[in-house]
């Protein structure tokens, strides 16, 4: 047993992991810095092209790899950035700009286009969204063709030439190298921040992200903005590398290339897609005779990746997570640490439902329900299937808006149909089937719970400014503490999808504790647990409630309910059949018969 106070991971272990992670980047950086020594500008051109494609792919990686949005036609950002920078520098439509300023403008136009393309992602299904991004790419190319006086139409327009210190040749090479390094650094920072974790949560466990207070629209728009900006800047550099751009330089094959590079690299990693981009840029140069078949080979590679190693290179390199975990692991919660986790600042308010009514297509799921969950109490909610237990939970969580009646915390009415706002009211919940981010570590999964407590903004996380680092430190410590409370701190660094089912249940409780909940709702937490795991779960739930949290426990296991609940409400056909102490309910005639179907 570790000592009473849960140890924050020793500084040495954490920094060792960070160095170990940075090793490949240091190697790549060295190669990039020393490449000009070869004095072979052919390799220089190929490397510049790889950097430029990576700047775009680093941004796209956040959209495709992290947020899981299938944005295929991303060459449109490159086109827009290239033409904006080229047109502004050449001064075809406006007085000539300074190239560096024009590049910034290219990035801004890219950012704007990123949001325009990104908006449909909020409403459209995956396939629809993939189609719209493809359609957008063809439109951008055709507008470039048609808008002759600005883009030079089919004739094209000369690319910008950047003056000292990044003048053409090795100067421009270092410009691309530095921007590529910057893009890598920023995307890595974002990925390791609470925004990055929230992105992956939206991809793999959207409902849990929502319950933890992640507002999907705002976050996705910010990511599309940033990815579009990187695409625009890459476009400006591309125009300079090409020295002269015509619409047919921006082919559909490039969209496919960017997309495949990220998938080959592996979703949810930075190093994998970077290697993928380098490989796919360099490959056609060495396979000269095959050049005609390059797109065919890319497509074949994509098919292989999708069918055989969906995890891509990152999965292959992830040897850490293949080391076997010891078989018989014990979950040993430490309820005594709860005081530090919940640090009672918020006063205990009562969560109350008054005369709530809800029906689905004529069937009354909840028919005039009154319920009160008092702080410091465990309130059990039982009833046969279809009695409205889970529907009640979902009404409190804000998934359904009741036709009548209200849900209030204290005297504040909870806004209906706004699940992501529940976190602000300190209302947390777990789910019938645990929602996890399989690819992320247990610690990261739990840190998702504390997303709304961070003060640093998106931009601060990009640049790891002090507020970001303070947030990360606080979130990491709070998560380790929460894991210690539920007894999973030994598994903090393990990938979540390697955990057993019961451990996932406790992990979800730890994530809920990150909100320092005033009210905690548990949806059949005992399902699939062994007898003594249920006993430990019961003790933990009681301890949480004694800290002043109002706990609502929806459960089938009658013995757990009667064991730990202070009050029990029995629902049947959407109405309260009986309510009282466990002993009263236990001997209530109708309850037993309704419950047993006697």
């Amino acid at each position, binding site marked *: 047993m570790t000592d009473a106070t849960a140890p924050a991971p020793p500084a040495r272990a954490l920094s060792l992991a960070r160095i170990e992670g940075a090793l490949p980047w240091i190697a790549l950086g060295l190669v990039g810095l020393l490449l000009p020594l070869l004095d072979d500008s052919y390799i220089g051109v190929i490397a510049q092209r790889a950097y430029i494609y990576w700047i775009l792919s680093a941004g796209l990686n956040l959209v495709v790899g992290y947020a899981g949005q299938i944005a295929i036609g991303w060459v449109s950002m490159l086109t827009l950035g290239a033409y904006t920078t080229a047109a502004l520098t050449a001064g075809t439509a406006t007085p000539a700009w300074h190239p560096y300023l024009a590049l910034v403008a290219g990035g801004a136009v890219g950012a704007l286009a990123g949001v325009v393309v990104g908006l449909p992602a909020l409403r459209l299904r995956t*396939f629809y969204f993939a189609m719209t991004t493809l359609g957008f790419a063809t439109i951008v190319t055709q507008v470039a063709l048609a808008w002759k006086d600005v883009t030079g139409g089919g004739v094209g327009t000369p690319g910008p030439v950047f003056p000292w210190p990044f003048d053409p040749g090795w100067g421009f090479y270092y410009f691309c190298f530095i921007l590529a390094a910057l893009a890598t650094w920023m995307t890595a920072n974002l990925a390791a921040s609470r925004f990055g974790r929230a992105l992956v949560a939206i991809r793999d466990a959207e409902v849990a992200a929502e319950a933890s207070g992640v507002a999907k629209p705002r976050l996705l728009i910010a990511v599309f903005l940033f990815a579009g900006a990187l695409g625009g800047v890459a476009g400006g550099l591309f125009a300079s590398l090409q020295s002269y751009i015509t619409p047919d330089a921006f082919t559909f094959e490039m969209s496919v290339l960017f997309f495949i590079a990220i998938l080959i690299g592996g979703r949810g990693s930075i190093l994998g897609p970077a290697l993928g981009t380098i490989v796919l840029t360099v490959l056609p140069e060495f396979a000269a005779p095959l050049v005609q078949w390059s797109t065919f080979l*890319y497509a074949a590679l994509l*098919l292989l990746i999708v069918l055989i190693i969906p995890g891509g290179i990152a999965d292959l390199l992830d040897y850490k997570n293949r080391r076997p975990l010891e078989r018989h692991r014990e979950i040993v919660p430490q309820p005594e640490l709860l005081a530090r986790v919940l640090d009672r600042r918020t006063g205990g308010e009562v969560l109350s439902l008054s005369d709530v009514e809800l029906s689905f297509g004529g069937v009354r799921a909840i028919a005039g329900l009154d319920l009160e969950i008092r702080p410091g109490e465990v309130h059990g909610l039982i009833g046969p299937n279809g009695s409205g237990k889970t529907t009640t939970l979902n009404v409190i969580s804000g998934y359904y808006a009741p036709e009548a009646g209200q849900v209030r915390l204290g005297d504040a009415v909870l806004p209906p149909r706004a699940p992501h706002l529940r976190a602000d009211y300190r209302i947390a919940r777990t789910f019938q089937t645990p929602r996890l981010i399989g690819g992320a570590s247990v610690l990261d999964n739990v840190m998702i719970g504390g997303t709304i407590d961070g003060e640093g903004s998106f931009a601060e996380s990009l640049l790891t400014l002090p507020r970001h680092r303070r947030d990360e430190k606080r979130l990491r410590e709070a998560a380790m503490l929460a894991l210690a409370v539920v007894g999973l701190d030994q598994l903090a660094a393990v990938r979540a999808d390697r955990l057993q089912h019961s451990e996932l249940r406790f992990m979800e409780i730890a994530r809920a504790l990150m909100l320092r909940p005033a009210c905690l709702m548990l949806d059949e937490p005992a399902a699939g647990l062994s007898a003594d795991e249920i006993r430990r779960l019961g003790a933990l739930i009681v301890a949480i409630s004694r800290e002043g949290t109002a706990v609502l426990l929806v459960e089938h296991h009658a013995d757990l309910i009667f064991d730990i609940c202070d009050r029990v409400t029995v629902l049947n056909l959407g109405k309260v059949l009986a309510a009282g102490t466990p002993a009263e309910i236990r001997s209530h005639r109708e309850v037993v018969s309704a419950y047993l179907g006697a």
Partner: protein
Amino acid sequence: MFASIVSYGLAVGAVYALIGITYNVMFSASRVFSFTAGMLGMLGGVLGALFIGKLGLPAIVGLVLVLACGAVLGLVTELVTVRPVLKSIEQHLYVLSTLAFALMVQQFVAVEWGTEAQPFPRLIAIGPGWLDQQFWLPMLACAVTIVGLELLYRKTLIGRAFLAIAEDSYAARALGLPETQLRMASFALAGVIGTLAGFTGAEMLLAFFGNQSILNFYGFVPVALGGMGSNRGAVVGGLALGLFQQAANFLVGGIFAAVAVFAVFIIVLLLRPEGLAGGSAARRV
């Protein structure tokens, strides 16, 4: 001018409708939206030109061979790109596997058949102007397909099995319906319809490897607007799109026509993501 807008619009609209139906036939049996619909359309034209134009086979033999290739490709699509990823359907891996497979076929055609748009041999030389074969052939193919599907669904048991799987695949499996064979059959049927669309439309669209991405997008628009899985929506949507595109093409010129179509597509989808007709029969949850 007006006559050629209507005749050309309805003809190309019929091809888009058939591609839309191809999407639906595959979708209703597997819940998978496959990028291969446009590929089948393109191949209908290219293979037709190859068999009849280059190899000089008689038109009927050519047509049968093309449809047979379509069926085989449909089966390959199901086996290689759909079945392996069905288990993790929520990850939408099928979008990537079907896109990759379609791209491979397109590039193969680009290298072997050439990147130039080759003419499609004239099959039945009657009627100048709007009576020309390139106009009524696709419309005939579309009508035949609709009637054929109606008969299939209403009269044959396999047709009714398709409807059953489309409505509730869990109940169909429990009842003992052979889900895998039915899915393969529907992909083969989609292969036939897709290549028929390409074959009959190739007089207008020519045998061109680039038709794949054009048909993928313009075949998808009627399905998205008409609601997934509804063939009626696909036909109405396809014909309307054909007319709108040709009108824009004449009035505004080619480039802005594409921009106009895309703009309408995006706006309608953002307002009603499940499409104008409210989507296919709501699945029992």
